[in-house]
């Protein structure tokens, strides 16, 4: 058995994700990173909201907190203040993190809470049946945009950077190795690390837009340009999102990294960790 699978709750598998769902690819890549970094996940807490991506935390043998829709960052903020020594990883989706939880995202970024926020962006509400999300590209068909989406999507990475995230990156399920490298950097970062991962919803977004199978969707991701080893000092600007029914070609890589006091540092909450609990 691959060593990262020691981090699973075996009785919970197989997971509930659909055939070909990109979330599963990212999930296992995340486990590989954790496998390399942690002997046990006793000091790691995953905080998730509601949605397909958020469900993956339930399969990890760690402290796992499956919260309410859109609010995982609020729980994570409180937890991190009570126990700054814990490694906190927030798993959220594009609906969870950018729509109902958009306000919490920008404020967690602004506060520079020392955690890693993984936002799985599959452009659609999968769990509720394929409705439009704030990331759905213009023209795309969903169950609530029967004539094609007329709204303009967010660029999550630019949003996070503007809100003050001190680490901003994008990866994709098509290149799990690139994702692993960026996640390592995100976990090394002290401060609010925002990592958007482009994944594919095969059953709803893929079918509704006739984009083919999970294989086809993965291959369509190959058009994205990985910008590995981006010169952080140069801070390349992100490209505007093209307005086509198919996901635009977005750059991958680390777009921004900077250092300023984390929330705990700003408040003088120590690293000893358990003052609040005493």
């Amino acid at each position, binding site marked *: 058995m691959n060593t990262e699978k020691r981090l699973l709750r075996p009785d919970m598998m197989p997971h509930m994700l659909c055939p070909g769902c990109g979330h599963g690819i990212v999930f296992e890549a995340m486990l590989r990173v954790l496998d390399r970094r942690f002997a046990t996940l006793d000091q790691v807490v995953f905080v998730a909201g509601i949605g397909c991506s958020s469900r993956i935390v339930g399969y990890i043998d760690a402290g796992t*907190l499956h919260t309410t829709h859109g*609010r995982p960052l609020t729980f994570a903020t*409180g937890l991190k203040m009570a126990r700054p020594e814990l490694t906190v990883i927030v798993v959220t989706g594009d609906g969870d993190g950018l729509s109902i939880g958009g306000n919490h995202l920008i404020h967690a970024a602004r506060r520079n809470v020392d955690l890693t926020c993984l936002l799985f962006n599959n452009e659609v509400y999968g769990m509720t049946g394929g409705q439009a999300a704030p990331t759905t590209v213009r023209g795309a068909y969903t169950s609530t945009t029967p004539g094609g989406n007329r709204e303009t999507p967010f660029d999550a990475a630019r949003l996070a950077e503007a809100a003050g995230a001190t680490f901003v990156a994008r990866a994709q399920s098509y290149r799990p190795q690139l994702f692993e490298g960026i996640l390592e950097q995100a976990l090394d970062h002290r401060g609010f690390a925002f990592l958007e991962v482009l994944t594919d919803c095969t059953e709803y977004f893929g079918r509704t837009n006739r984009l083919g199978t999970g294989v086809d969707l993965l291959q369509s991701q190959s058009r994205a340009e990985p910008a590995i080893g981006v010169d952080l000092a140069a801070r390349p600007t992100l490209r505007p999102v093209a307005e086509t029914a198919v996901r635009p070609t977005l750059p991958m890589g680390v777009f921004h990294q900077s250092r300023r006091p984390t929330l705990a540092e700003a408040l003088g909450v120590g690293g000893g960790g358990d003052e*609040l609990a005493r």
Partner: protein
Amino acid sequence: MSRARRLPEPTRPLPPAAPAGNGAHPTLTLVQGNEACARGALAAGCRFFAGYPISPSSEIAELMARELPGCGGVFLQMEDEMASLGAVLGASLGGARAMTATSGPGFSLMQEHLGYASLAEIPCVVVDVMRGGPSTGLPTLPAQGDVMQAQWGSHGDRAAVVLAPGGVAEMLELTRVAFELAERLRTPVVVLADEVIAHMREGMRLPDASQAPPPPRPGPAQPPGPAFAPYRPNAAGVAELPAFGRGYRFHVTGLMHDERGRPTSDPVVAAALLDRLERKVAPAVDLVPADTYRLADARVVLVAYGITARIARAAVDALRDQGVPAGLWRPRLLWPVPEQAMAQALAGAELVVVAEMNRGQWAREVDRVLGPGVPSAPCLKAGGSVITAEELTQHVLGARARTVAP
């Protein structure tokens, strides 16, 4: 007339909230209700507060912002009330005693997380200083309109624990009790105050600030390991979740779950869980007994809580002066409804008058317990002003004339 309009007497002083330190006699301090609430929280070991400004509760947040950093705690002003209670629950899962304070509109926004905390069994304290509603309503005027929201505001059948302080000193005491209940029952506890008590100042004894906070929340009796079942209840029916990062790895979810915390859609498991959550909060009725005033020989029993109970005492005195054998039963726990104690207190009454600043929210509960046999004539007033002692007295006299045979 002038008699009825005189200021109501202060509630009888509560026993000192904490033993006086160093043998010194504690002195009376003029304290605001909201401040008393914050002092009570601090004395109870609250070390995390997350809130969002809203009248008339803001002074609680302001005092916590001043005091918490000095005692190793954390104050956060969050982006909204959903975030506030979310952060409180996150901190609580880290092992901290945590609370938030708000008023009606914010309390509405917190309902989702109140439900979450109930189902996931996360201790916390939520103070709701009631103001006139619905909607933005009457931001600075008193009301008692959140009584039903405190129990039923969240979707589903939530087993609520809701306390109603009757004065400044009790703001402190019941906030402490709220923490004790929350920690013991592993559930959110609501302190349902009102604008008058929150903004009232009274002389009271403050607890010794140098007193050591209570010990940390105890962990579960089960050892960590693959067989660990965080939601396996103890003898009292309470699931004792450990704090995260203390050697236990477990799952917390707002989905229906089994004893291991794993999500389930099994109706049998779900029904049993709801049943247990209701049973586990039942002991609260014994832990927070009601207060009474001239009740022993009363045949006309007034039922009131919060500031209305303070006024009802004046009405009881006025009625007694006019030869009406009136008394007051003042619940300090609104939910779960202390049915037995209520039935006992009201046994033998020939008239029951519930007085509250809403359109009959708790009066329905009283009528339900009372049954059809006893005449009931609630004195209700919503719209932003308190029921005066004179109004209540006249109401009782009128009702008595209608219902009680001379």
